[in-house]
């Protein structure tokens, strides 16, 4: 009964979405306030209905209703409750429902926090979000219904893919989707502005907090995914450049460009067409990512054998949404008009250069991800483009981007003086260069890549310090007052940029100084790596809720002094008969020690991989700082709600 309620709620939601996607938009064109007024109640009703559907599915999982096909294929009675809930988005149909649900969360949030917007703009934005929702709900109802019954009911479920049975999996996809789908708000703002022809600084100011919030979620989502890959896949890697990761990274790159471009549009009225194009692209890449990951074009031959209509549906949807909005862009953008002029050396041009670099980086990822597919489509054989490609492309693209980031925050709008900048940054440059040249010899060895990485990381740190000093010494007021008077968005920028510095530092050190070894170990054997002694104490059998585990214990010591223990596991998930490696990790500020079990060998020996990962945690700390920076910027008081119609004229310093 409950699944039927969910199914029915979904059908009703489709009808409501149809209303939400048509009447307000037509009403806005005809200035019919009754029709426009439908937007808000429709958005809220649709949220209620989709939430009902979502909780019905969650209930089916929680109550182990194996008469629902989707539950039977993605859950099992031995699966612990938290994973049964996470299993709601463990497969194709459920993750679509999560997508639609989150879209509605964003829509309903917009409906509450948009009272200050002009009626027409508000109606158009909600209408566009309703149109997107139609696509997803229709997709579920036609070819991917999560509520489909299985008759006769299965005796027990097929279990959730063991790779996904992890605490990270409970939070990672919702975060990632919050980010992906959150760009739909920026997209709706952009399209609404294109339709209405009103693209100005106020529009940018309204659109900015939504974009930043989506970006924060996406940053956290990617960070979680990377962290999950690190401890779950057992290879010590934290980023694999695989298609699924790339699918989330492309919108992030474009989204990062977008939040900076929005800043210029807000402050200077410039880059309007470019900002709109980025907003369209960020959301388009989110949709494309969903397509690539969900349709299975990239991964599994068998994804289609089950249902080729799915791929076709997504493709049609992409054509309508992306093609339609790009066509609208081509038609309306020429009328937008140019922003203020600026000099070659100015904050605008630094930001523009950064934008271009980020966009090119996104294109290079897109190329690397899709090119193998293109060759295949043309019948020119199978190739793969591995991490070396992305590594080679990214270092040269990001080097100028990071360098300009340091300059850009210090440069003036419109016109800056190079001599002045270079005098101000002399010592920052000197300190960074000296660090890059000297520090590696203290740490062990020097390579050009380590030098470059350290230079960039310290360039960020030193320019930030310079910026802080500059900001605080500017007048005679008390320090406390000055700190208070600086807008939060400025602090947000500083923190997020420091996050990039942490990230670059982490990547540089871990790539430069990590080491690993693979050894055959009998109980009592000792392996040596990076000054640590790893003693293999042996294996113990442990029975998990739905798996059997062989849990190893490794004692780590330095010069005979015991430091810590690692507990790598080899699990066998019994339902799918699938082995899984769980790494044993001892995390630390300056290094992680990481061990994972290979295979059992004769005589009680095991093959064991041991990794020494210096400063790897800084990578995620950096991502965390970026997200915190975004949140700080969001808490800026100029985004607090103002009465409708009132034009905000608060002049702010700095770009967040």
């Amino acid at each position: 009964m409950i699944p039927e309620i969910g199914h029915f709620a979904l059908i009703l939601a489709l009808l409501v979405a149809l209303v939400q996607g048509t009447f307000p938009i037509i009403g806005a064109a005809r200035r019919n306030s009754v029709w426009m007024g439908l937007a808000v109640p429709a958005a809220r009703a649709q949220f209620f209905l989709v939430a009902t559907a979502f909780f019905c599915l969650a209930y089916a999982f929680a109550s182990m209703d194996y008469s629902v096909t989707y539950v039977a294929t993605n859950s099992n009675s031995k699966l612990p409750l938290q994973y049964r809930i996470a299993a709601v988005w463990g497969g194709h149909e459920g993750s679509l429902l999560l997508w639609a649900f989150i879209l509605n969360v964003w829509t309903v949030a917009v409906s509450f926090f948009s009272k200050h917007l002009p009626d027409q703009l508000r109606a158009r934005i909600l209408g566009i979000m309703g149109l997107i929702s139609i696509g997803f709900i229709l997709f579920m109802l036609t070819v991917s219904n999560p509520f489909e019954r299985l008759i006769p009911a299965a005796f027990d479920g097929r279990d959730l893919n063991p790779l996904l049975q992890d605490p990270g999996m409970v939070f990672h996809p919702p975060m990632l989707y919050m980010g992906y789908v959150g760009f739909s708000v920026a997209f709706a703002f952009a399209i609404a502005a294109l339709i209405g022809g009103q693209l100005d600084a106020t529009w940018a100011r309204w659109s900015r907090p939504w974009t930043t919030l989506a970006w924060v979620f996406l940053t956290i989502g990617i960070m979680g995914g990377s962290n999950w890959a690190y401890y779950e896949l057992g290879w010590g890697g934290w980023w694999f450049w695989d298609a699924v990761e790339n699918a989330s990274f492309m919108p992030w790159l474009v989204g990062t460009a977008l939040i900076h471009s929005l800043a210029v549009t807000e402050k200077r009225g410039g880059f309007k067409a470019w900002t709109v194009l980025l907003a369209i692209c960020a959301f388009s890449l989110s949709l494309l990512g969903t397509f690539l990951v969900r349709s299975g074009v990239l991964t599994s031959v068998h994804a289609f054998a089950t249902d080729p209509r799915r791929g076709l549906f997504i493709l049609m949807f992409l054509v309508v949404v992306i093609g339609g909005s790009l066509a609208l862009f081509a038609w309306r953008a020429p009328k937008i008009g140019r922003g203020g002029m600026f000099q070659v050396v100015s904050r605008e041009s630094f930001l523009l250069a950064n934008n271009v670099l980020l966009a090119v980086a996104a294109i290079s990822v897109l190329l690397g991800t899709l090119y193998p597919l293109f060759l295949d489509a043309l019948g020119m054989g199978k190739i793969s483009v591995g991490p070396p490609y992305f590594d080679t492309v990214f270092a040269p693209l990001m080097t100028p981007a990071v360098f300009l980031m340091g300059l850009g925050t210090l440069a003036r709008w419109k016109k800056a003086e190079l001599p002045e900048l270079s005098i101000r940054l002399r010592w920052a440059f000197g300190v960074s260069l000296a660090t890059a040249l000297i520090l590696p010899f203290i740490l062990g060895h020097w390579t050009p890549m380590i030098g470059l990485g350290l230079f960039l990381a310290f360039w960020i740190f030193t320019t930030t310090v310079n910026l802080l000093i500059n900001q605080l010494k500017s007048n005679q007021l008390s320090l406390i007052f000055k700190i208070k008077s600086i807008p939060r968005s400025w602090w947000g920028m500083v923190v997020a940029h420091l996050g990039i510095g942490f990230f670059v530092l982490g990547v540089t050190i871990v790539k430069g100084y990590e080491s690993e070894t693979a050894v055959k170990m009998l109980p009592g054997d000792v392996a040596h790596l990076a000054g640590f002694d790893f003693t293999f104490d042996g294996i113990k059998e442990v029975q998990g809720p739905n798996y059997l585990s062989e849990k190893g214990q490794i004692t780590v010591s330095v010069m005979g002094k015991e430091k810590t223990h690692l507990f790598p596991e080899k699990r066998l998930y019994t339902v799918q008969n699938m082995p899984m490696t769980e790494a044993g990790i001892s995390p630390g500020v300056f290094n992680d020690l990481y061990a994972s079990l290979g295979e059992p060998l004769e005589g009680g020996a095991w093959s064991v991989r041991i990794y020494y990962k210096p400063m790897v945690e800084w990578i995620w700390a950096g991502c965390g700082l970026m997200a915190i920076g975004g949140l700080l910027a969001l808490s800026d008081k100029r985004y607090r709600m103002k009465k409708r119609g009132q034009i905000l004229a608060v002049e702010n310093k700095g770009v967040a």
Partner: protein
Amino acid sequence: MKLKARHKRFILIGIGLALIALAATLILNAFRSNMVFFYTPTQVEKGEVPKDTGFRIGGLVVPGSLKRDDDGLTVHFVITDTSKTVQVIYKGILPDLFKEGKGVVAQGKVDASGLFVASEVLAKHDENYMPPEAAEALKRARENSTSTLVVPK
């Protein structure tokens, strides 16, 4: 004054275009040198594979072919596309899902004796899934075979 502003704009656009051209060269260059081509065991047998650069092969691990050296880390196994086979040597730990009779993809080079020295072994699949390259190898072998299958050893 107006001319000067336009002039500056041209410089800006010029710098932008130069940067993009540079980036494009870089990306395409990186692309060319980092593409990993894929071959089937049949192609390896016929010698249609590059001598100096690495490539990928895919197919099924022949049941019973997996052997381990005494160090516990060097493994030997045979990959087949059901028509021809390739001997593979790999030093390292095999992925969780590596199993005899299952699809596998290996990346590496062929040495002078015709042995495939793998630097990486991938077996990212579940029961329902075969790596696309492995499936491709089987498909091609079947398209070319004239007799029913001869399964080696």
